[in-house]
Structure formats: structure tokens, C-alpha cells
């Protein structure tokens, strides 16, 4: 490997100024307003009178180098080579004149790329790794995203909603995908604690680090087997111990599944950012298309579209009609699991007699 170039350390990323379209660089900080021209295109207008047109397409986030090269070829042909990715993993292309939009759109469509995601619609789903790449996963993420977006693709490409609906998928309770503040989010949940393979724990794992890995101190030494034991009532099925000790697998095909939480948001428009709240505690994994999950999401969307005022996000609509109203509108069953008994439980009990009949 002597032909390798000299490595460098602590240089950080390339400076973004190398990657800015000249019109974006020239009008940096001078933008005055923007208009959404279609679900996949918008224009930003500068104080200088310059305009930049953005065309947005969907991406599965998991991209092959071949597809990235296709994006790049289109950027080279139409946009001087400039492109970017959004924080929800869509791809954006830039052109500096309205006349250049149609040819760009034509090429993108010819390649089969899906335009959309701008405005009061469903944009791409923020998600994590799942079965494609993570050891703690209680479900797959990419497959769920694909199944849901196929069912909802009209809300990406054309139809409008009362406001944006932001979806997220996290494949285990570690929630890398930050689902706890989304309009609708799915979380993979394990229902059973890790299974301890005593012989392999003894041979392959460092017992002190395994014990230390547990956030709830549920793990203690088991002198009889020179292995460990788990205090069941303390375990919250996070899978941390399995990260440290592969002899404690947590995945369980029959008992792993998906919870749905709704009504969160991160922006401050009108009302403060909100956490998402539990509406369906568990749906079994049913790959490759998870029909019970997509059905539940459609029920939520339908109730939201029917009930929300223009500009209300899912959480704002629910707060107006009350959570009891939400369960009534969706017909979801309200179970013991819905009542909080964790850190912030007290704050969630109704300390008043003013509720609506459901």
C-alpha cells in the first residue's frame, strides 16, 4: 500500500464556500422571499433581483455510488455541478433562470426520479439503520419508510395537507432518528429482555463492562454460572448490554414490533415544540410491507385531514380536540400502556374534571 497518499488529520470538512452555486454565493444573506412553484420546485428571490430555482427529488437515503453519480451527472449538465441534500435527505438541484427549470425537470423525470416534498405535504421520512445495519434493531427502518411512502406518495408529489406532516422511523428505543418530536413516528420496540447465554457470557464477555453498560442497573453478577443475571422489572429493553456483550441477544422475532407516537413538532410556529405521544403501543413486524402499520398511519392522516384547520400541525389539531377526541376520531383502543408511569408521568394526569366524552 506504499502508493497511498500522505494522510492528514484534524483538517475538518471542506469549506462550504467551494460548493456554493455562484448565484447562491453572490446573494448569501440577501434573500428576500421565496415562492413554492409546484410540489417539487421553488424560487428564492434576492434583494439584488437575482433568482435561484430549486428542484427537489426524493431519495431513499441509502444510496449507491451509481445513483449518486446520476445525481452528479444531472447537476453537471444543468446546474454547473452544484447540488445539495436536505436535512430530510432529499436531493436539491439549482438553476438560475426559469427557462432552465423545465429541461432539468424533464431529465429528472426521464431518469425516474420523484419530484416533490415542498410545501404543506409529507416530505421524506427521517430514519435510522434497522436490519440493514444495526445490532439493536427491533424492526427495519428502510423497509418501513418505503412501505409508508409508497402508500403516501401522493402527499409527496401532489396533494396538500392542512400543514406539513413530518414522519420519522427509529428502529429501537435508542431513537437515533429523533422520532420523539415528529407529527407521526414509529419506534421499534422489544417486549422481552435479552436472553443470557451463560457459557458464552463467561467466555466472550467482560462481566464488569457488561454490568456497567446497563443504564438502569438491571444487570448483576451471577456467581453460580460465572455469568450475569437481569432483574426483569428493571430492564427497559434498550439493548445496550448486547452492544457490549454479544452473548446477550435481545432480538425476538415474535415479540419485536412497532409503536406509533404522534403529535410532536420541533418548530415554534404558533405553539411550542412538542413531544410525540403514544397512540399505538405495539404492532407486530409484518415485513416486507407492514400493512397494519401503513393502515394505522392512513387512519391518522384521514382524521387529521378531516379535522384540522388550515396551518394546524397534527399536534395542534389534537390539542384543540383533546387526546380523548383523537382516540374517538381514530377508533384506536386506549390501553394501560397509554398511561405514563415513567419520569414525567405526574404532569400527564388530568387534574381537572373537564374532559370530553369519548
Amino acid at each position, binding site marked *: 500500500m506504499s502508493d497511498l497518499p500522505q494522510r492528514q488529520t484534524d483538517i475538518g470538512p471542506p469549506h462550504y464556500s467551494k460548493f456554493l452555486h455562484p448565484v447562491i454565493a453572490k446573494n448569501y444573506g440577501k434573500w428576500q422571499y421565496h415562492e413554492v412553484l409546484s410540489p417539487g420546485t421553488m424560487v428564492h428571490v434576492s434583494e439584488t433581483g437575482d433568482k435561484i430555482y430549486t428542484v427537489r427529488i426524493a431519495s431513499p437515503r441509502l444510496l449507491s455510488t451509481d445513483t449518486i453519480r446520476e445525481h452528479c451527472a444531472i447537476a453537471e449538465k444543468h446546474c454547473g455541478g452544484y447540488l445539495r441534500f436536505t436535512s430530510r435527505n432529499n436531493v436539491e438541484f439549482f438553476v438560475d433562470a426559469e427557462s432552465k427549470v423545465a429541461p432539468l425537470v424533464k431529465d429528472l423525470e426521464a431518469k425516474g426520479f420523484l419530484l416533490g416534498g415542498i410545501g404543506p405535504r409529507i416530505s421524506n421520512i427521517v430514519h435510522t439503520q434497522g436490519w440493514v445495519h444495526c445490532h439493536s434493531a427491533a424492526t427495519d427502518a428502510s423497509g418501513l419508510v418505503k412501505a409508508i411512502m409508497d402508500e403516501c406518495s401522493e402527499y409527496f408529489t401532489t396533494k396538500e395537507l392542512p400543514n406539513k406532516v413530518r414522519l420519522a422511523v427509529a428502529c429501537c428505543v435508542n431513537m437515533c432518528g429523533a422520532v420523539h418530536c415528529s407529527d407521526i413516528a414509529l419506534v421499534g420496540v422489544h417486549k422481552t429482555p435479552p436472553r443470557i447465554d451463560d457459557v458464552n457470557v463467561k467466555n466472550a464477555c*467482560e462481566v*464488569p*463492562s457488561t454490568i*456497567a*453498560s446497563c443504564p438502569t442497573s438491571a444487570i448483576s453478577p451471577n456467581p453460580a454460572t460465572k455469568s450475569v443475571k437481569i432483574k426483569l422489572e428493571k430492564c427497559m429493553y434498550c439493548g*445496550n448490554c448486547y*452492544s*457490549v456483550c454479544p452473548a446477550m441477544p435481545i432480538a425476538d422475532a415474535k415479540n419485536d414490533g412497532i409503536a406509533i407516537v404522534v403529535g410532536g413538532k420541533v418548530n415554534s410556529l404558533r405553539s411550542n415544540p412538542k413531544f410525540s405521544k403514544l397512540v399505538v403501543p405495539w404492532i407486530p413486524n409484518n415485513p416486507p410491507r407492514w400493512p397494519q402499520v401503513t393502515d394505522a398511519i392512513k387512519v391518522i392522516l384521514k382524521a387529521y385531514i378531516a379535522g384540522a384547520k388550515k396551518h394546524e400541525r397534527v399536534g395542534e389539531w389534537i390539542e384543540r380536540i383533546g387526546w380523548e377526541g383523537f382516540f374517538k376520531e381514530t377508533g384506536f383502543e386506549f390501553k394501560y400502556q397509554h398511561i405514563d408511569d415513567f419520569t414525567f408521568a405526574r404532569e400527564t394526569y388530568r387534574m381537572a374534571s373537564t374532559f370530553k366524552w369519548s
Partner: protein
Amino acid sequence: MEKEEVKKIIYALVEASTGKKKLKQSDILKKVSADHGIEKDEVKAALRDLVDAGTLIFTYFGGSFIEIPPK
């Protein structure tokens, strides 16, 4: 103190701890600094030499630790 001295102290500390308690970078900085009256920045520079040379390495077990590389 000479950097080479500090490096020996750090290595001895990590060696003595191996198999007992995993040390984080900040455990090492605090302990060597307190025991030998050396500025933390100096300890950090010595530790960085050891890691750059591969004499010690960072490991990850639900947190990042400094350890002697496996044989």
C-alpha cells in the same frame, strides 16, 4: 517533567488498570495531573503521542476508553 517520563507514567497507569477498570481519557488526565502535579494539557499531549504511535488505543464499549491494543 520530560514528555517521555509522562508517557511512561500514563502507560503504567493503563497497564495497571487493564482487566480491572477501563479508563477514560479524562480519568487519565485527572489522575496523572493530580498525582504528579503536571498540567492536564501536558498529560494530554503525552497521551496523544502514545495514541498516535499506536502504543495505546481508543476502544468503545458503550463509552470510549483508553486501552493497550490487543496482541
